[in-house]
């Protein structure tokens, strides 16, 4: 086995293992899908009412807003609302000590875990959502209210790159919440704070395009925008060309910054961690 393959072996193994294990929760995936359909419909109706009330100056068309909404529902679970529950359990039980006994970089270890955990939950939900909003709705004549395909091949390609950055950003932010949980020795505080911050700053509640001109660049520059607003705006072509390249570069740049900070903070937190009991 070559050097790199040997180095990466633990990370790939835990990533694959967690993905498979998480994928088993079919009932949760189905329940999540139905909930997200329900919220998708409501949000689409809200947008429809908003546009019907005279939205001449709206920054995107109703169709784009609807596509943005369905993408948000499809990829909802990538939003890092919580500390990784496995890590939370380990910190509570003290089994986190074993994490430090593995010959792996603790940050990379938690990062791949978080990535496998979110991806495995997103995969079935997103697949069902694409079938529902992207295929079934158009088939029954509700195409106007459904998920439209990307307008061009370029948009699709940019979206693929941006979505990859979205997955990495999501994992990086989850690990930051883990670290906050380790520092506080309790997951409730970080979890309560994370959800509203992520929902608002990602553009999940309101697409960032709807914010005033002076505020929008600031909102789009912060890392959480890369979870929803940037990838989905790229998808329907609202951000295209060099702007798309710049936005994707910004996403990856934030991944690097958050990972570097997270790795430093995790090592620090681990050195201070007093494993409970014993």
């Amino acid at each position, binding site marked *: 086995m070559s050097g790199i393959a040997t180095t990466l072996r*633990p990370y790939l193994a*835990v990533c694959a293992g967690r993905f498979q294990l998480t994928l088993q929760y079919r009932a949760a995936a189905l329940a999540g899908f139905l909930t997200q359909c329900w919220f998708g419909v409501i949000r689409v109706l809200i947008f429809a009412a908003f546009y019907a009330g005279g939205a001449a100056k709206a920054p995107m068309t109703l169709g784009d807003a609807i596509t943005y909404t369905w993408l948000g529902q499809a990829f909802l679970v990538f939003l890092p609302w919580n500390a990784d529950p496995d890590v939370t359990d380990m910190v509570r039980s003290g089994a986190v000590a074993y994490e430090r006994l593995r010959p792996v970089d603790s940050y990379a270890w938690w990062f791949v875990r978080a990535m496998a955990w979110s991806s495995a939950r997103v995969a079935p939900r997103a697949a069902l959502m694409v079938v529902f909003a992207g295929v079934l709705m158009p088939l029954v004549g509700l195409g106007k209210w459904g998920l439209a395909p990307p307008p061009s091949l370029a948009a699709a390609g940019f979206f693929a790159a941006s979505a990859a950055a979205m997955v990495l950003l999501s994992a990086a932010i989850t690990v930051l919440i883990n670290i906050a949980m380790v520092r506080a020795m309790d997951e409730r505080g970080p979890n309560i704070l994370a959800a509203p911050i992520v929902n608002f700053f990602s553009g999940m509640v309101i697409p960032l395009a709807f914010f005033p001109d002076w505020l929008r660049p600031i909102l789009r520059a912060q890392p959480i925008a890369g979870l929803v607003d940037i990838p989905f705006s790229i998808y329907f072509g609202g951000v295209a060309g060099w702007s798309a390249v710049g936005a994707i570069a910004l996403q990856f740049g934030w991944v690097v910054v958050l990972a570097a900070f997270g790795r430093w903070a995790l090592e620090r937190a681990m050195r201070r961690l007093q494993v409970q009991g014993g």
Partner: protein
Amino acid sequence: MPQILVEELTKTYRIAERSPGAWGAVKGLVRRRWRTVEALAGVSFQLQRGELVGLIGPNGAGKSTTIKILSGILEPTAGRCEVNGLIPWRQRIRHVARIGVVFGQRTQLWWDLPVIEGFNLLRDIYRVPQDRYAATRDELVALLRLDRLLDQPVRQLSLGQRMRCEIAAALLHSPPLIFLEEPTIALDAPSKLAVREFVGRLNRERGVTVILTTHDMHDIEALADRVIVIGGGKILADGSFAALRAGVLAERRLFVDFAGAAPALEMADVRVVAASGQQLELAFDPRRITAPDLIARIVAAHPVDDIHVEEPLIEEVIARFYDLHGAAEP
């Protein structure tokens, strides 16, 4: 060069203190009071390759802190520590690849996975080549009799079964040094014996160095050639168990069943511990009066049905030792 070198190791924790009650909680928001706790106050010892050492001490003595520092989980406040030539907390990743650790009160196996899948995951985590892994695994499965457990999810195992699997899990990467923290805790007698026997063989036949912490003194008596007693963050004793016993509690007990009612015995160097019906329990110091001598004198004076000598319970020895050193937890 010893395998483990520990010199003047200290570890102090800072703990936030809070006055009791609601007002105390409010005060704590404004001004925190900190209290420093000295978990280790200058611990030094060395271990050679192939030793089996029991690390004992009352709760809160510093055993776990020592193990956590040696295994690289915790960074000490001061002092020197090298294991296999590495500084555990600085060269953590290289260091942990060469040790095995079992914490009896925690699990390192994956709750939802069958045992064998957990083992396979550990193979990848420790980057063990497949052929070497297969050989080690098969050997551990045979020695610890795990063959019928491998397909079961960890959550379904009994504690004894799980502990055997935990020990195997800690050895899949063939570490030359293992730390066992309370590996027999809450196990039934057959499981305890199985674990003891396995650990003994591992040490004797493979030359694996073992550091064992436990509150079960029978573990120590059965396994350890050397005992390190820690109390109040300091080493109180370091030597053989027999030496420890002799130094603390030489006293032995003689139980005498008389043919009639037990007489009121008045003898020098002998203390009556308990009297019930026909039986007397006597305590004596074998350095002052030997057991045969004592028995001869009693039998000469009184008709006797039965006599037997007992060593004081090991627990008693240890409790007495902790007591003498003021080491018991407040």
